[in-house]
């Protein structure tokens, strides 16, 4: 009797231990591997599943897609990289790659030993995913930040459709005309990528220098934020929301505001969901002339992946001319291969998008990344609204953020 109970207890304990240890590793059981990606909708999931399929065929193993919403993706990834549970294939955004390099495999040797034609990629997109001269991911998309706007709202307010290269003065005049028609012109945001692009376009202000060092004491950046705060104060722009990163997109989609900053990767989603005719134009240019940031994303291989060759084969296929052509045709990604960009233009289906993208591309510089990128993004969500909404002077808030970052 006693022996039977001891055996039962041991079995129960064993079961518990096994349950506790059964969390997945990067190799998705059997002969498969995991690819982690940010996913925002079921349409996203369907499209990325097809990409995973292409990767699986090339690698000869199953590639299973593991998704999280964009904001949570980075937190989850940071807990996975550096452990044996890291996904083999890792999606990476150019401005965040610096903080993850220790968990990623440099791809240079694999690129050299393969027959991949690396020159077919856009040079800037490749550079954006390299750190200290080492390539950590192959890019699938790239692209300059632009201004999305509501063509119908502009028409209703009797405002002429903006042309690429339009200026801050043009924008302010349009915003005032829209306001007379009870239409808020612009959605402010505290999301790093969009806020930084807005400031750069306004007066060249930056919080990160080209090498990725913080320059939070840059008076031009503070001045640009004060300009945004002025728009909010005058009722020409909607307030920034700290905890809700989608507030600006939602306000734009439901017609609450008539424009917002965005990347080309959003075009498909915006066009599909907007109940109005979508327009694309360059960010309003300030005194320093037209400027914008470009950012891109790609796929890398984790340092702890047990089969890096297969993972690299999958990544190569997932960024092949064929796959990027499909993503471009869907409008999902402005492709990182120069040749496929024409497909994106043909299928975008938005009037004036070619001219706007051409103009933006010519004035785009890479958006730098920092090893403290996520920390900065978190601090922006806490402190950002205070400065963008004009509750506290931008210089004071930026100094506080700098203090918290230890800069």
């Amino acid at each position, binding site marked *: *009797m006693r022996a039977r109970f001891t055996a039962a*207890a041991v079995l129960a304990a064993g079961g518990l231990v096994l349950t506790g240890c059964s969390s997945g590793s990067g190799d998705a059981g059997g002969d498969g591997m995991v690819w982690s990606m940010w996913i925002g909708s079921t349409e996203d999931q369907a499209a990325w599943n097809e990409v995973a399929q292409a990767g699986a065929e090339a690698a000869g193993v199953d590639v299973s897609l593991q998704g999280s919403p964009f904001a949570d993706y980075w937190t989850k990834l940071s807990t996975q990289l550096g452990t044996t549970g890291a996904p083999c294939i890792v999606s990476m955004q150019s401005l965040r790659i610096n903080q993850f390099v220790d968990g990623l495999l440099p791809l240079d040797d694999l690129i050299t030993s393969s027959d991949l034609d690396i020159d077919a990629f856009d040079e800037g997109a490749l550079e954006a995913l390299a750190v200290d001269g080492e390539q950590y991911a192959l890019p699938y998309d790239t692209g300059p930040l632009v201004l999305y706007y509501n063509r119908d709202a502009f028409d209703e307010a009797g405002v002429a459709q903006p042309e690429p290269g339009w200026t801050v003065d043009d924008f302010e005049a349009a915003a005032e005309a829209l306001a007379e028609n009870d239409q808020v012109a612009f959605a402010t945001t505290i999301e790093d990528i969009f806020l930084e692009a807005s400031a750069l376009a306004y007066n060249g202000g930056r919080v990160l220098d080209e090498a990725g060092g913080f320059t939070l004491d840059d008076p031009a950046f503070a001045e640009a934020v004060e300009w945004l705060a002025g728009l909010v104060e005058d009722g020409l722009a909607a307030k920034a*929301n700290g*905890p809700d990163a989608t507030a600006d997109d939602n306000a734009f989609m439901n017609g609450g505001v008539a424009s917002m900053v965005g990347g080309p990767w959003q075009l498909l989603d915006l066009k599909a969901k907007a109940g109005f005719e979508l327009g694309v134009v360059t960010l309003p240019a300030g005194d320093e002339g037209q400027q914008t940031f470009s950012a891109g994303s790609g796929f890398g291989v984790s340092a702890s992946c047990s089969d890096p060759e297969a993972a690299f084969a999958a990544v190569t296929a997932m960024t092949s001319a064929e796959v990027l052509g499909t993503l471009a045709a869907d409008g999902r990604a402005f492709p990182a291969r120069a040749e496929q960009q024409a497909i994106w233009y043909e299928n975008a289906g938005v009037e004036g998008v070619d001219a706007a993208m051409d103009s933006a591309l010519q004035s785009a510089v890479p958006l730098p990344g920092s090893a403290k990128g996520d920390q900065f993004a978190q601090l922006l969500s*806490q*402190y950002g*609204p205070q400065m963008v909404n004009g*509750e506290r002077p931008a210089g004071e808030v930026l100094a506080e953020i700098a203090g918290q970052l230890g800069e």
Partner: protein
Amino acid sequence: MTGEDRTVTSLLDREATAAAAPRATAPVTRRRRGRGAWGPAFAAPHAIGLGLFTITPIGIALVMSFHDWPMIGVPEWTGLDNFGALLGSSTFRTALLNTLLFVVLYVPLNLIVSMGMAAWISPKIKHRQLFRVIFFLPTVTPIVANAVVWRMLYQPGGAIDATSQAFFGLPMPDFLADPQWAMAAIVVMSVWQGFGYNMIVFSSALDAVPESQIEAASLDGASAWTTFWRIRLPLISPSIFFATTMTLITSFQVFIQPYIMTRGGPGESTLTLVQFIYNQGFTFQQLGLASAAAWILFVIILGVTALQFLGQKKWVHYD
């Protein structure tokens, strides 16, 4: 030993006695040995689970707190540096004060509201089961969903602001974006979310108060208020003790509400200790510092709970 444990043990005792009764002549020592084998067998799954998933992580966190432990990379022994850094950090001090402020506001409010509701839905009320379910609903609804809905309610142009504008022509403050209001807004939402649990505890305890004692009191001329204050409350004091202890512990660990509704902002005005730990660990990737902060929180909660257990002798009646 918790109440549940006591019940289980006494049930086991009774069963063992009943089983042993027909064989009253069996040697006493044998019976004891037999029971001894059952005990560890029943306790093993729980003990192993507790050891693996609670005590081991707590131990590992203690080890980590003495290291500079990056998310990716090699840990390095730093002794007490993490604790020193925390005590010198104004952000940590703010998070500690914010957490204390939340506890001081939330715990009494929660207890008052839940006790008030429990007293109100006494057996005399019609549809009391329905009210019980309605008041308990927020507690069983996922807290993340609740927080998202309340974030929308609080927004300018949201339900609260719109109602006030429509009826009184007064715009409401931007509750979650105003440092003066943000913590109060989170406390109100948390009380709404959390009072149902304590209400059920109190309601059940009130139901268990013997009717004869209430009757005796009313025959002696005690008013409803005196009966509640002098008879019912002392009789349900073990439940109040349980509710206070559990509510205090969970309120020190508040995280989801500020994380979803404010991300700790505006500025640091709703940054709580657990969010500080989360930020340090998973956003700033400093697991050593996060572990040190978690240990400080652990010790605070342990201390407060110990104080409560010491203090209960003065006001909790188990008779």
